[in-house]
Each structure stands twice: as C-alpha cells, then as structure tokens.
C-alpha cells in the first residue's frame, strides 16, 4: 500500500543552496570523520553496536552549525538528528538528514522508525528567526539521503527526495520519495600544477658546455 502526499519539484535556487550544504558536509566529513574512528579505537563504549550512526549524525549536525543564512535554518530533532530548512517563494522545505542504501534493483532506500516524518506541523516561531521564516504558507518534507563509503565513512552519494509517503504500513517505514535530485560529492579540483621549463642559460657566450670552448 502506498501512502502519498502532494507533489512538487525542487526549485533551481534551492537546489544550488542545497549543493552548498552538501559540499560543506562532504568536506567537513573528509576533515573530521577521523575523530569518530579515533573515538571508536580508544574507547570500547564507542565500539558497541549501533553507536557509529549516532556519532556520524552528531558530526553532521555539528557541521551544519557552520551554516548561517537568512534563508537556511538548521533544526535539531529530538532523536539527535537534524533538518536543514530552506525557504523560497513562500514554501518551507525541510530536508531531514537520513542514512540511505540501495536495494537489489539499485533503488534508493531510506527508512524511518516512525511515521513522524509524514507530519509537517509548523514550528513555533523563535526570537531570532528571520522574517522569511514566518511567511511560509506551505511546508514540504524532504530527506537529504546520504550513502557512505564503508571504509572511510565519507559520502559516496547524496540525494534529496521529497517524502510523498511510505511503502509499507509498519515500522521501519520505507519512505516513498519523489523528485529525486542527486548532488555532486567529488570535489571539483584545480586543473593542473603550473611548473616551468626554466632555462639553464647555457648560452655560448658563457662558454658552458665544452671545456675546450671555455
């Protein structure tokens, strides 16, 4: 059975902003994921089952703390997760960070332990909220789904998908996603090192090259 919500696609400007978020997370993971490896190596508490995922989630949420914008907000969730919230043209889009996988058919699989993600209640306004935050007339629930390289715990792929329902009726719920957008996670690199042919100045006038000539 499919539980469906309304559909809408991702505006280009939001996609660009989201790519910025993904790049920030990607590079942040590259630079800091070793801290998780270190924690797991040095203390057995962090080697217990199911501790890696919360640690990574905490790291991602911390990285999102570097975001600061009048059109992007980061909401921490009760379960330790977080959402990137973007506003555009009266629409509030909530991108919940979720670990994903691919099934045997290559389809993106994102699961949720509860169906709370299907509920899009407005958040009560806060003191420092920019004015745009209170003008949203529509709320959309999305996921920012990431797959990890198993050896490195860094991004293998990141996609945004709008949550339009669930595939099944019982937890864990497999989310039904629409309007999937893939983001680049391989960093763009500069073209080349500019060396030099750098002449040795072996001109005849210097008499170098032949002993008899000098």
């Amino acid at each position, binding site marked *: 059975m499919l539980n469906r919500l309304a559909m809408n696609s991702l505006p280009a400007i939001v996609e660009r902003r989201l790519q910025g978020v993904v790049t920030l997370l990607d590079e*942040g993971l590259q*630079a800091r994921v*070793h801290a998780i490896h270190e924690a797991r190596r040095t203390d057995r508490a962090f080697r217990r089952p199911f501790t890696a995922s919360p640690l990574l989630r905490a790291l991602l949420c911390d990285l999102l703390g570097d975001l600061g914008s009048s059109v992007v907000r980061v909401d921490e969730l009760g379960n330790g997760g977080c959402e990137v919230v973007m506003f555009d043209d009266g629409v509030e889009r909530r991108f919940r960070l979720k670990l994903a996988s691919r099934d045997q058919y290559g389809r993106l699989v994102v699961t949720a332990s509860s169906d709370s993600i299907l509920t899009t209640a407005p958040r009560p306004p806060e003191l420092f909220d920019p004015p745009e935050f209170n003008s949203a007339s529509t709320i959309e629930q999305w996921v920012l789904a990431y797959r990890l390289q198993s050896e490195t715990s860094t991004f293998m792929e990141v996609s945004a998908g709008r949550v339009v329902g669930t595939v099944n009726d019982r937890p864990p719920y497999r989310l039904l996603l629409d309007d999937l957008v893939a983001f680049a996670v391989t960093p763009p*690199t500069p073209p080349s090192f500019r*060396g*030099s042919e750098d002449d040795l100045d072996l001109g005849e006038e210097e008499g*170098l090259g032949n*002993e008899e000539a000098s």
Partner: protein
Amino acid sequence: MARQDRTFHVSDEVQARLKRIRLVRRWTVAECAGRASMSAATLSSIESGKAVPSEDQLLGLASALGYERAFLSAKRDLGPTSRPWLRAYADASKREADARTALASLAVEYIRALNFKPLPDLLGPLRGDLDDAECIEEAAAEVRQLAGIESDGVVLNAIRAGERLGCLVLPLESEMGRHLGMSVRSDGLPVLCVAKAGIPGDRQRFTVAHEIGHLALHGDAAPPRDAAESSAMERQANQFAAAFLGPGDALVSTLEEVSGGRVTLTALAGVKAVWGISIKGLVGRFKSLGVISATQAESLYKQISARRWTKVEPVEVRTEAAQWFQRSLTLDVGTDDVGQACRAASARIGANASDLVSFVDWSDTNAEVVTLSARRSRVKQGDGHATR
C-alpha cells in the same frame, strides 16, 4: 716498468668499459661473447682482468657493442662509480641495478670524452644527525638555497633544480616495476636517473628530490649494513624530498589560503596545484608537520583509496625533462637537431649514437620526436644496440 704500468692501466680501463657497455645492453657474458665470436670463458677472463684482449678480440667486441675500437681502448682515468641509491631498492634486481649503474657511468664517460664541462657540483656532503627530522629540514632548506630557490618558493622544475646543483640527470625509459629512480656518483659527478614518461609528474618530481636527498645526505656514507639501515636511509631521503619540494611554513600558509587550514581532499588538491606535490604526499607532509594527527592521515589515505586516487590523482602535473646534456651537445655540434648532434658527437669519439641519444632524449617514447632519426642511426649501426 713504465710500459708495463701503462699496459696494465689501459687493460684495466678496457675491462671495465667492456663490462659496462655489456651491462647497459643487458647481455649476459655468453650472449656478448657469442656476438663477438669468442668463448664466454675468454670474455669472462678479459672482463675480470685475467686476460688482456688481443687486437682481433677487441675489434670483435667493438663491433658487437657498436663502438669504435678507439673508444674502447682510450685512456681516460675515470674515477670509480659509487654504489647506486635506488628508490624502492629492495625491489631492484641485481641485473637492473647493474644496468642502470653502468648506464650512468657510461654517460659520464661520454661527457669526459666529449670534454663537456658540467655545472659546478654544489652537493657536498652535509653533516648532522640524520635521525633528527629537524636536521633534514635544515639540509633541504640549504640545498634549496644552493639550487637558487627562494625559502618559501615553489620548485617549479625539480629536474632543473637538480641540474643547477650540478647533477647529470638521465632519462629512464620507464620505472620498470617499482624502481622509481637511481643516483650514483661516477668519476665524482653526481648522476640522477629518473623515468621520463608514463608516470605522473608529481611522482617524477618526488623521485628527483629523493635522489638529490641521497646525494646530499648520504654522499659519503658507507653502504647500509642491513635492511633496517637501508630503510632508514630511504626514509631520510623521503623526508628530505618532502621538505625540499614543500617547505613547512610556506606549505601551511598555502593550506590556510586554500581552505582556512582545514585538511580535506579538496584542500589538498588546491595545495597540489600550487606546489606540484601529490595529494598522498601532502597528507604525509602535513602529518609530519603536525598539522594533522596520525588518525586523520589514516582517514585521508582511506578516502584517497576509496576514490581510486592511488592510481590516478586529480590535478595534472606534467613530467619534466633535463636540459644540460642535450643543450651542451647541440651547442657543441652547432645544430638544434638532437639526432644529428648525437651522430656527429659520437662519430668524433668513436662512440655509439644510439647510446648517446638514450642519455639526452626526453621525448615520450610514443611521440617519436627525436627517435625517428635515432632509429635510422640505429639501423645503420646494426642490430642489438639495446639502448631502449
């Protein structure tokens, strides 16, 4: 008595020269003897000094090796060739090591025979505690200064830096497995050999710097007594190369500019574009500088591997080519055509043009820029001149 001395000395030189050229060809004693129409035992006796070659035998060997008799029997009083420093020494077969050492010695013999005057040798042995990383940093800074590189400047051309230090830099056709480079002193002249094509430029640059490190740090050192000592010397040469190509403060300053000091693969790619040092090499360098921890370095190595950058890294660094020998040759002969210069110069000293081409030809093997004329020359001189 004087006559006896001279005969012995010439024979001694001839023996060494015959063996050297045979090793460059990678021929066994039996193979070379067969080509010269003599027995392997006879050639073995000649090479070991137990027999002096007759005129006919010398002519036969000269013909087989592609040389004039005059070149083989000339008196040049060359100094000895040191034990070679080979990057990844443990993987080098004796035959390969011997061939490359012989190649370096032969190239020096050409330079002496042609009366070329190398640039001043600035690589005098450095003193200090080589187990002290700080000492190696200082040594690298000193050698950079000798090569005319600013203390915070990028080494724009590592081979040219080597040449400015007085090194003869010779091209190797390829790395041939894991033999990344080699260095010796032959007749007092520092010689580096490095692959000319088919490798990333950053690796070639590091190899050149590594070999400069051996010549600067271990120039007068005794051969290593065991594998542990050998690997310590390799580590010292690596530390030198890293410091030579990337002085610490300047490298960290670039990292600050590129990423605010955060070490990510993107940031490392940006630093590579400035300094011409591989991303993997930069991870090691930043670790040794204390910018990142061992755990972060390990994490970055895994990320590099997961992106398959261990095979091909982003940010192109072009391979470099030496200039001194080729330029000296073309200036001497008075032509810009390297093939023609090699033929003219080798004819003057009774040497082998193909061998001379192999010392100065840095063109890509597939490009056939110089090798077209060189090939004609090889055909004229007969088969079996294994310069490639």
